[in-house]
């Protein structure tokens, strides 16, 4: 359902010729342009349903090394066009969508050799390496990066660094900005920057480049922290009478000094769906949760406030799954039992290891539910924010209240810190026609359906983001900003936007790098 593929433009062909003359692989083939026009931003699936790809680049380039990256940037400066770095397009915020055309810089062919140094606990890796491949190579040497996001099978290391990604074991290993030691990047003038591994003076340049989403520099390689791969796990599920009991237990675990490898607390709906009580979940909620019964699902989503009230009427219990990693069973048992005792002090009921085992087995599946929902005519997206413990209850109430009439809201709590945690809100609402109906309808119907779908999605998304911002949360914990959240960047940063613009002027004085992102 791609609709017509984008055609090469005269400028695209001219850029292609210049790139090929420089020995840089490039293409204006319509299929390549289409593939580089998108990432996994859920809102963009509405475009796909309408058979549109509104933001193709003019050419796609595949540099092999930092020198070729620099050459592409200098060409963009000379030709007054732009460069949009992309990894594998697994971002979920539209960060690598080329809203102003230009050159899509596909970094997957960056080919620096991998250097694994387990004694010093470091790995040097090219930005274009796929995360799962890196982890596979590390595990062959008995090591691990400890970074397992849902996107691991498709995301690149550069993409992780560009967005400040987190992963399911971040409570133990940290986010990507905690794992990065040094990096190499090319700025908007074509200058290669190499941050230092070791003591340095002044502001930390590495931390200013991480999370810059391709607007300040193109990350080409990085040195990351690795660890010996643990051989064992201790897993547990605990059911609490309420979310608040679960929050207190999580906080107590973190304050005790314990660092589970993962900890995930589910809201009442996800708790029931995860357990043997799934049959007790009202049918409309199951249709939405599993993307089943398309027609019934669309009907149910016409009354999201009723769906949310059904959720409110569910038993209030909350499931926590967590685990520890290590090599010695006794050590793991000691940590696990200590954590369990803290949970039991908050009226937690020990459910054994099965719930946590089930979570680990199925943790990559939820992302595949999204396609069914969109196909049925819904929209689905995840808003992951973070806040401190003292603001958590208010955040949860604020977002649910703001969105109750617009979408079904689910939430889980993970990426736990000493002073707070991340909250991931799943939002499912009605977009419009199913994909099947859209494909068989007229062009005018498709465009009207798109307009209505975008309006519904935007209303829901803006309400949720605003409520989270009002409640003092940060607008993104690990997905990044992209196009999805930049409308609220001024709320997030206030006068800090001036600092951001100054960084842009400093690193990219010609404004060629991913323009239109981060409001820059």
């Amino acid at each position, binding site marked *: 359902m791609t609709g017509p593929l984008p055609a090469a433009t005269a400028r695209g062909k001219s850029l292609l010729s210049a790139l090929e003359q420089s020995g840089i692989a490039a293409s204006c083939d319509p299929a390549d342009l289409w593939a580089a026009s998108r990432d996994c931003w859920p809102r963009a699936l509405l475009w796909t349903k309408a058979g549109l790809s509104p933001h193709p680049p003019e050419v796609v380039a595949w540099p092999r090394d930092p020198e070729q990256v620099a050459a592409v940037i200098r060409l963009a400066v000379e030709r007054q066009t732009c460069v949009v770095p992309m990894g594998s397009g697994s971002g979920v915020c539209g960060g690598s969508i080329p809203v102003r055309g230009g050159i899509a810089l596909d970094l997957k062919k960056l080919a620096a050799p991998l250097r694994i140094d387990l004694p010093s606990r470091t790995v040097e890796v090219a930005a274009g390496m796929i995360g799962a491949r890196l982890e596979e190579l590390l595990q062959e040497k008995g090591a691990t990066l400890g970074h397992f996001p849902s996107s691991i099978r498709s995301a690149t290391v550069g993409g992780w660094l560009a967005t400040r990604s987190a992963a399911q074991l971040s409570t133990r290993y940290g986010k990507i900005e905690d794992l990065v030691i040094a990096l190499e990047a090319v700025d908007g003038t074509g200058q290669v920057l190499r941050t230092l591994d070791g003591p340095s003076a002044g502001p930390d340049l590495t931390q200013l480049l991480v999370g810059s989403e391709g607007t300040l520099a193109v990350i080409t390689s990085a040195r990351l922290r690795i660890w010996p791969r643990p051989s064992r796990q201790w897993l547990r599920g605990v059911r609490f009478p309420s979310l608040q009991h679960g929050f207190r237990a999580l906080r107590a675990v973190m304050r005790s000094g314990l660092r589970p490898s993962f900890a995930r607390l589910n809201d009442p709906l996800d708790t029931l769906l995860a357990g043997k009580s799934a049959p007790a979940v009202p049918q409309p909620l199951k249709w939405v949760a599993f993307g089943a019964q398309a027609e019934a699902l669309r009907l149910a989503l016409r009354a999201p406030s009723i769906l949310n009230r059904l959720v409110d009427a569910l038993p209030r219990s909350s499931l926590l799954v967590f685990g520890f990693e290590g090599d010695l069973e006794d050590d793991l048992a000691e940590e696990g039992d200590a954590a369990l005792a803290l949970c039991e002090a908050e009226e937690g009921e020990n459910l054994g290891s099965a719930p946590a085992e089930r979570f680990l087995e199925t943790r990559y599946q939820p992302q595949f539910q999204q396609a069914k929902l969109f196909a049925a005519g819904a929209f689905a997206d995840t808003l992951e924010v973070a806040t401190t413990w003292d603001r958590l209850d208010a955040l949860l109430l604020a977002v649910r209240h703001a969105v109750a009439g617009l979408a079904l809201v689910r939430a889980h709590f993970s990426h736990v810190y000493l002073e707070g945690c991340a909250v991931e809100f799943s939002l499912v609402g009605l977009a419009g026609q199913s994909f099947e109906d859209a494909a068989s309808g007229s062009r005018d119907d498709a465009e009207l359906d798109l307009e209505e779908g975008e309006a519904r999605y935007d209303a829901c998304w803006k309400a949720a983001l605003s409520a989270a911002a009002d409640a003092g949360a940060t607008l993104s914990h690990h997905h990044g900003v992209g196009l999805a*959240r930049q409308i609220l*960047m001024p709320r997030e940063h206030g006068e800090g936007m001036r600092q951001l613009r100054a960084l842009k002027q400093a690193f990219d004085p010609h404004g060629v790098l991913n323009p239109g992102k981060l409001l820059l």
Partner: protein
Amino acid sequence: MIDRLRQDLGASGAAIVEEPQGGYRVTPPSIASLGRAVAVVRAWKLPLRVRGSGDAPGNARGVLLDVGSLDRIASVDGGTGIVRVEAGCNVAALEAAARRAGATLGPLLPSVRAGSVGAWLAGPTRGERGVPGARRETAALSVTAVLADGRLAESRAAPRSATGPDLDHLALGGGGRLCVVAAAWIRLFPVSPALAASWTFRSLPTAVAALEKLCLERSAPARARIVGSGDGARLAMAWEGLETAPMERDRSARILSALGALAESDRGANYWLREPSSGDAVEVDARWASLRGWSQQGELQFFGMHAGGAFATLALPDARGAEEAAALARAAGARVIAPRRMRDAGPGWEAMGAGAVWRRLVEALGVEEAP
């Protein structure tokens, strides 16, 4: 011109004193006044130093901003583990306030403890501290910084974020050059009794290597001290963590036994660990290879340990001074960060290929200083 400058500075509401060696010392009574004073200094393109901030240029010209009056502790939330504090507050005073709420800043270098919060964050340690799992993170949950025109930029107080570059890092370690730290939300640890233990090794470098090994196994202690001579070395460590201190101590004991270390009685270890240096110490930020290779004899105290290295105080025996300790540290590849008069400039953005970026950033932020 001087009268005009005095007028402008006076209008900021700050107290102004002309320094004997030239320049002015400006003491704002509030953050609002601080903002106005910074705006004046930047508009005049004068060199700006912030008292206790760290790496600001040490020349006598220009303006010395004394933020000592901005010492309020606005709130301490021991349960959540955060405190809101102004930049001029003394770190030791902040620690005392945290302790009253059942929390602590954790082990910190002596120079950090003796200085202000602003100096801690803007200085060479960037406000970093060790956290469980042999990692380091900044203690600043959020920074409020004064920009060149006097306006305040404050980041969201969230444990982590992904909303673009971390703008706090324009202030952290910046020495007040790009923006001036006015206040911050600081992370706290819960107070827990420390468990200590000590071991002997055949040499000082061997003891350092053993501590490094613990960090590489994700078993970094909260603090450590090594004293070594020609006859061997003693390593003492302390662990903090309500549940984890005994676990970490036992695991460390296992690792050290496997390395051939001899366990000593734990009695007195905690006191010995916290004794001030017997010699004239310098403070460094160093990788493990530098700490191992620093000297065959002497005393080291460790803070903020992680898999890559640590902050440390280094002192030589027999009244050999700090200058010699510093020279040995530099020869081993460490960066000396205290005392202030010995601080190494250290590799900056120029060494990373970002010299031009730095100059453009200074201009874009409006913080140029006239030559």
